[in-house]
C-alpha cells in the first residue's frame, strides 16, 4: 500500500521532471535555430518555399474552419443576446471572440496538426535517410539550411493564417446573423467597429499567434531533428509534435491572456 503511494508519487515527479526537461530542450534548440538564422535573408527563397508548404497547404482547412466557427459563434451569440434584447451586438461578440481568442488559438491548433506534424515527419525522415549527415559532410549546417527556413516559415505563416481565420469567421457570423436571422446589417458593423480596439484586440491577437507560431515551429522542428532515425521514431515524434504543441498553445494562451488584460496595473 505504502509502496504503491510512493511509486505513484515517484511517477508523478518523474513525469513532471520529463516535461520540464523537454521544455528546456526545446528552448535550447530555439536558441540554436536563432544562432543559425544569420544567413536567413540570403536563404529567403527557401523560406518562401516552406511558407508555401506550411502555409498555403493549411489554407483550405483554416478558411473552412474559420467560416464554421464564425457561424456557430453567430448562432450562439444571437440566441443569448436576444434574451437581453440586444441581438445587434452579436457582431461585437463574434469579432472579439475571434480576434482575441479563437482566431489565434484554433488556427494554431490546426496549424500544429496540419503543418507542424508534416514538418516533424519531413525533418525526421531526412535524418533517418542520412540526408542531414550528408549535408553536414558537405559543410552545410542542417540547422541553417533545413531547420531555420522551416522555422521562420512557420513563424511568418501563422499570424497570416490567423488573420484569415478571423476574417472568414466574421463573414460566417455575418452570414448567419444578418443574412439568415435578420439582424440589422448597419448595427452589426457599426457596433463591431466601435467595440473592437486596434491595439488591444487586433494587435494582441497577432502577438498571440506570433508566439504560438514560434512555439509550434520550434517544437515541430525539434521533434523532427531529435527523432530516433527509424520509422517508429519518426511516427512517435509526429504524434509528440501535435500533443506538445497543443498543450503549449493552450498554456501560452492562458499566460498571454493574463498579461494582456486591461486594467490590471
Amino acid at each position: 500500500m505504502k509502496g504503491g503511494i510512493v511509486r505513484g508519487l515517484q511517477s508523478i515527479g518523474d513525469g513532471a521532471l520529463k516535461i520540464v526537461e523537454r521544455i528546456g530542450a526545446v528552448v535550447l534548440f530555439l536558441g540554436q535555430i536563432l544562432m543559425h538564422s544569420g544567413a536567413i535573408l540570403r536563404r529567403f527563397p527557401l523560406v518562401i518555399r516552406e511558407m508555401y508548404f506550411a502555409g498555403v497547404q493549411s489554407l483550405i482547412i483554416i478558411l473552412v474552419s474559420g467560416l464554421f466557427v464564425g457561424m456557430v459563434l453567430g448562432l450562439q451569440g444571437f440566441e443569448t443576446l436576444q434574451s437581453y434584447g440586444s441581438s445587434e451586438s452579436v457582431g461585437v461578440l463574434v469579432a472579439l471572440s475571434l480576434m482575441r481568442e479563437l482566431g489565434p488559438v484554433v488556427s494554431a491548433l490546426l496549424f500544429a496538426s496540419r503543418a507542424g506534424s508534416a514538418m516533424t515527419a519531413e525533418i525526421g525522415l531526412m535524418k533517418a535517410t542520412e540526408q542531414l549527415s550528408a549535408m553536414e559532410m558537405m559543410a552545410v549546417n542542417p540547422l541553417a539550411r533545413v531547420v531555420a527556413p522551416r522555422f521562420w516559415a512557420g513563424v511568418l505563416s501563422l499570424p497570416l493564417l490567423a488573420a484569415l481565420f478571423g476574417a472568414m469567421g466574421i463573414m460566417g457570423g455575418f452570414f448567419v446573423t444578418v443574412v439568415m436571422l435578420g439582424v440589422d446589417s448597419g448595427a452589426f458593423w457599426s457596433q463591431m467597429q466601435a467595440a473592437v480596439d486596434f491595439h488591444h484586440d487586433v494587435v494582441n491577437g497577432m502577438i498571440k499567434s506570433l508566439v504560438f507560431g514560434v512555439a509550434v515551429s520550434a517544437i515541430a522542428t525539434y521533434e523532427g531533428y531529435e527523432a530516433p532515425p527509424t520509422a517508429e521514431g519518426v511516427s512517435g515524434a509526429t504524434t509528440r509534435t501535435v500533443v506538445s504543441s497543443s498543450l503549449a498553445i493552450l498554456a501560452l494562451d492562458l499566460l498571454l491572456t493574463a498579461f494582456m488584460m486591461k486594467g490590471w496595473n
Partner: protein
Amino acid sequence: MNDYVVIRDLNFGYSERPVLKGINLTVHKGGLVAIMGLSGCGKTTLLRLMGGQLQARHGSVCVAGQELNHMTESQLYALRRRVGMLFQFGALFTDLSVFDNVAFQMREHTDLSESMIRDLTLMKLNAVGLRGVQGLMPAELSGGMARRVALARATALDPDLILYDEPFTGLDPISLGVIGRLIRELNDALGATSVLVTHDVQESMKIVDYIYFVSDGVIVAQGTPDEIRASPLPFVHQFVWGEADGPLPFHYPGVALVEDFGLMVSS
C-alpha cells in the same frame, strides 16, 4: 606532410560494446586506399570518424595535418569543404532534383554564376553517365543510379579527400568497371586522396594502391594488391577468394545455435 590521413590507436564504440579497438592506418597524399572487412566490422564507422561525424573514444584521427578530436565546429566545417563523402545508401536530398543535388555545394559554397554551375554540374553527371536524368527526382532513380548521382555530388567541388562507402554495390558489371576507373581517374586528375570501403575485392584490387583488412576492431592485414593476392594468411585468402569455410565467421557472434532454436543435445 606526405601523409594525408593518419589514424593512431583509434578506439570507438556506439554503446558499451567496442566496435574499433586500436586502429592504425595511414593514407599518403594522392593515395587510393581500400578498407575491407566483413559486414558489420565497422568500416562505415571508420569513415564517419575520418569525416569528424563521430568522436574517437581515444586515439587520434588526423586529416590534412589537423587533429579532428580537438577541433571546434567551425574548424570542422572548414575542413569538410575539402572532403567529399559518398554515403553507403546514397543519402540524396529527396526534395531536390538530381541536378540540384549535384549543384548543391556549388550554390552553397561558391559564387559561381548559374550558367557556370550548370556546365560544371552537367560535366559531373556526364562522368557518371547520368546527364540524361538531370531533371528526375531521387525517388525516380534505381538504387545503382542513385549511387552514381551521389558519387557525382560527392566530387562536385573537386575535394582533396574523397571517402567512398561501398561505391560498387548495386552496379551492373559495365557501370562497375566504369565507376572503378572513374574513382582512379578522379584520384589522379584532381590529385586527391581517396579512401574506399568495399566488399568488391576483385574490382578494387584493380584500382587501389594499398589495402587494409579490418577484423574484430583491428587491422589484421595490409599490403599492396599484389602482396594481398600472394598473402599466405588464411583469412586473407578466404576473403579474397570468397570462401565460406575458413577462420572468418559468417555469423555475427551470438548465443549458441542450440539455445536460439531450443534444440536438445542428446549425448
